[in-house]
């Protein structure tokens, strides 16, 4: 291999700096290509949303180091089919699923370490392999390995657009106006979730005259502005997916606008009730375990007036859920809590009184789908329904938190960017910029990293082959 400083012509240019970009860069370099990565962020913020991730959803037919039991391909596929409601491609999904079963040795070779599931995440011990230290540790390991292998990385180098010759990649124009040419390119620069203007436009105006996206928080990086998605749309690349679809969860309303990450989750939703700004309940809080429902609550809250909800619990359930990062609003009576939260007391009390009266006696157990449910109240609460009657009472305001958007460049199993349904010979895409091919809507934990890893590796291999004039 050539030494990195000796690059005269770059074989593979990787635009982006997260998991998919790193997988592509490492694979291309391992295939013998000279590789340059362009990361928009400064070094401290490198890694995009990958720095907030924590696991990889993995197919396995038998127990495998940190993974217990088995999670066969068919079950994985059925899970994906269920959460996406069919908005997926079976061929690409199965490709991702199979890749997830055998990529971890490669990840380990590049320094990624796995750990048993975290406390509070035992429900995914069978399906998800956790990164030791989380996604930022993974990102650090990949960057170290990339450096050792001679991948060059330029930080603070956002790309403004791609220069094409027909459907062939020629070069990338940086925001500072520099043209960087290469023989092949992998686009892995993330979705557009950090671009608040675009979110506003994508979610539009609702019947109440509100712009819901104005009240969204972004759980991840501030650098995913969707510049290249938009640039490729302009260039006529084939697209897939609805721009209002994405991974959107309910998070603490006090979370920072960007990079709140995992700790801003509110895990007590299923143990209490959630009311909207008007003091009314709007969905079955106990439908299923919170980790299986958190991904729908972002949209549920987004549909409420003012895009806000309030999770209400009492003392009985303290210590039964993952501790929230910010202390809840507390009060010694429910009317007082309503006042503190700024919710109309009368409606709030009517909601809580009728909920409390509807709770049927049962045996409360937050670790199983228990038999505590309501009768005669709409919406029903089907599990863990205990009357909220023991002070102090706690309230947590919820906002929709966007994790990533699904609007994507359309691909087949080669990860090539397509124009008029024809693949480019030297331009590839990976990660959030194409995740919508597999994930048209909904979400299930760890699947984003499965897609990013699988397609990052494919894109890197294909790009190296294209650059070096070899068959892929």
């Amino acid at each position: 291999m050539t030494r990195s400083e000796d690059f005269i012509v770059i074989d593979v240019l990787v635009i982006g700096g997260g998991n998919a970009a790193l997988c592509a860069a490492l694979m291309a370099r391992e295939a013998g290509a000279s590789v340059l990565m362009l990361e928009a962020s400064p070094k401290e913020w490198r890694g995009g949303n990958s720095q907030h991730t924590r696991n990889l959803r993995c197919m396995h037919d038998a127990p495998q180091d940190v993974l217990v039991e088995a999670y066969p391909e068919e079950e994985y596929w059925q899970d994906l089919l269920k959460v996406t409601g069919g908005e997926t491609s079976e061929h690409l999904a199965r490709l991702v699923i199979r890749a997830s079963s055998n990529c971890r040795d490669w990840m380990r070779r590049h320094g990624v370490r796995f750990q048993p599931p975290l406390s509070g995440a035992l429900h995914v011990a069978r399906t998800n392999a956790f990164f030791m230290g989380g996604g930022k540790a993974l990102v650090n390991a990949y960057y170290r390995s990339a450096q050792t292998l001679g991948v060059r990385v330029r930080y603070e180098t956002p790309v403004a657009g791609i220069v094409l010759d027909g459907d062939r990649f020629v070069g990338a124009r940086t925001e500072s106006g520099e043209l960087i040419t290469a023989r092949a390119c992998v686009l892995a620069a993330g979705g557009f979730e950090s671009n608040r203007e675009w979110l506003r436009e994508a979610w539009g105006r609702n019947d109440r005259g509100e712009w819901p996206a104005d009240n969204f928080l972004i759980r991840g990086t501030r650098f995913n502005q969707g510049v290249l998605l938009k640039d490729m749309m302009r260039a006529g690349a084939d697209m897939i997916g609805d721009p209002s679809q994405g991974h959107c969860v309910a998070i603490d309303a006090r979370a920072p606008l960007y990079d709140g990450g995992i700790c801003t989750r509110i895990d007590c939703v299923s143990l209490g009730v959630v009311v909207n700004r008007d003091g009314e309940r709007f969905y079955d809080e106990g439908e299923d375990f919170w980790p299986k429902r958190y991904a729908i609550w972002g949209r549920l809250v987004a549909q409420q007036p003012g895009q806000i909800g309030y999770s209400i619990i009492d003392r009985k359930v303290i210590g039964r859920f993952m501790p929230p990062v910010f202390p809840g609003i507390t009060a010694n009576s429910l009317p007082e809590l309503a006042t503190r939260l700024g919710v109309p007391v009368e409606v709030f009390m009517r909601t809580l009184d009728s909920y409390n009266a509807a709770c049927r006696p049962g045996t409360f157990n937050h670790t199983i789908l228990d038999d505590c449910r309501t009768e005669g109240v709409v919406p029903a609460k089907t599990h863990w329904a205990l009357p909220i009657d023991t002070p102090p009472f706690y309230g947590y305001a919820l906002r929709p938190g966007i994790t990533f958007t699904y609007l994507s460049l359309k691909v087949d199993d080669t990860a090539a960017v397509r124009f008029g349904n024809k693949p480019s010979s030297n331009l590839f895409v990976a990660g959030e910029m194409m995740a919508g091919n597999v994930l048209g809507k909904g979400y299930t934990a760890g699947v984003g990293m499965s897609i990013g890893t699988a397609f990052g590796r494919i894109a890197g291999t294909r790009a190296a082959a294209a650059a070096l004039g070899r068959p892929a």
Partner: protein
Amino acid sequence: MAAIEDLTRLALDAERELETNAAEVDRILHICNACRYCESFCAVFPAMTRRLDFNVADAHYLANLCHNCSACLYACQYAPPHEFGVNVPKTLAQVRRDTYVEYAFPKSLGVLYRRNGLTVAMAVSLGVAAFLIGAILMQGSLFVHGLEGQFYVIFPHNLLAVLFGAAFGFSVLALAIGVIRFWRQVSEPGKPVPLPNAAGEAARAVLTLQYLDGGHRDGCNNEDDAFTLWRRRFHHFTFYGFMLCFASTSVATLYHYLFAMEAPYPILSLPVLLGTAGGIGLLIGPAGLFWLNIRRNPMQADETQKTMDRGFIALLFFVSLTGLALLAWRDTAAMPLLLAVHLGFVMGFFLTLPYGKFAHGIFRSAALLKYAIEKRRPNPVQAGGE
């Protein structure tokens, strides 16, 4: 009077600082407890998940459980420049110094931790050495030929035994009182557990420095996000070197009193062999730790403690260096001078023992034992068991 006022002011500062540092532990561990990505790096995070709030005693306990491997800093999505500004290793390091100050015996001397740096260590050691040199000069010449390693001609054995025994005995007592007070403060009574198992686990963690392996056996961080096992290895050189020296002294004491065999001992005798091996370990270990210390990322450490760290490293290094020099030239005219200097460093080491970095091993061992006991009890917080 000025000195007393000075000490009082320092004690008040220490009190205020402890409150600030413990409050910062409470703040950042609320963030960590909601995240938990670092759970398998070390014992701090599993211990954290047993709590929802963190009082001063918790801060002391968790701070001393932390080995400052810093894996959690580089892995942290909330580390600076994030607005949450989470820096677990630095915050806990700051509290550790508070622990040493708070639990020092006598308490009024605890503030020495804030000043016990390189200068104090060297000043005490060289002061004692100068005093001993003066004592030799009072009796005649510093350079005497033909003594052939007869140490006790210079200083009678019993005088040395009493002086050094008293200094060491006081240091051990002071540390023991401190660690017992620490234990009482951080440990609440709970369900009894099989103590031998817990003690065995804690002993293994201490003797292998399990928590300097990063949880993945790649090691801990020093300059950047790359892992290194050298911090652990240099600690082993230092610790086992020290233990060998201690064994050497113990064997020599037995020889002296039980078998009436007086120093100097032959090169191939057990005390000399143990002492030489230990001495070499005590050169390599502290030298390596110093090298790592000067290269450590300032983000990982409490900069105000560097002088305490380096003072201790220097003492160990010079105790060993002067001891080996004494062995090498014990048959020459330089022996009295070398003996005085060596004894000066040994005395300096003993005197500062309860008020310097030595304490970190003691408090950390206590915290590891508490952890080994605590983890055998049911977790009082049943969060997210689903």
